[in-house]
């Protein structure tokens, strides 16, 4: 019988799924920290540009936001990949999609870290 389902050699699907689960769990924790700390820590809240800049002078805040970024972006993009896989792309298209999503993810993370550090330096 013609087996048109070709096996992956890398265990890619397994590792990506595990990563999605782990980042998902971390996000529940880090997002709670992100919301609670951003709401309650700054005096008078984060109302204006000046408040945000002052807030980001705290290196722990910068670290927290970077950790959040690094967990959310992979989770989101692996999830988007799962949705795209329902379109049954060919093997070639799948590899292209993998590369595009990886590129988007790397760009988002680099941009986010640059942004966090830049804002921190404005204080």
């Amino acid at each position, binding site marked *: *019988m*013609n087996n*048109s389902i070709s096996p992956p050699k890398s265990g890619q699907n397994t590792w990506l799924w595990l990563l999605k689960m782990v980042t*998902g769990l971390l996000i529940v924790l880090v997002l709670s920290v992100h919301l609670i700390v951003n709401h309650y820590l700054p005096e008078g809240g984060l109302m*204006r*540009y000046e408040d945000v800049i002052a807030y980001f002078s705290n290196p722990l805040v910068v670290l927290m936001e970077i950790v959040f970024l690094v967990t959310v972006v992979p989770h989101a993009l692996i999830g988007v990949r799962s949705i795209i896989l*329902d379109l049954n792309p060919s093997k070639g298209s799948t590899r292209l999609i993998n590369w595009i999503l990886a590129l988007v993810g790397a760009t988002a993370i680099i941009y986010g870290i640059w942004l966090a550090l830049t804002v921190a330096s404005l204080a």
Partner: protein
Amino acid sequence: MSERENKPNTSNWFMWFDVRHRDIGDWAFVLHRLTALGLVLYLGMHLIVLGTLTLGPDAFNSFIDLAHNPLFIFGELLVVAAALYHGLNGLRVGLTSFGVAIPYQKQLWYVVMAIAVIGSIIFAISMFTA
């Protein structure tokens, strides 16, 4: 027979959305995917908007002025509701995926919805009375 397999699916990609005659679990999946798409869009916008912090006070502050618009606050409420549902149902999916509480997956979903709805109401009250 083999020509049916693995053809790129361009015609019925939206069929995952068809919940007619389906049970709780399918509703859970559809809501999970819808909130996921909403949150991805939000993530992109959030990262871009925060970029205005590097353009001086006026850029970011004028965005903040926009954010006082009730329509905008409603949008933020949708994001909060989506995040609550997606995170809580995500925990449910994580649990059942590792074999925990599978016979109770429907009851778990009711708990997820209850917390998500109550949480959203609390957020709505605090956001619109601030």
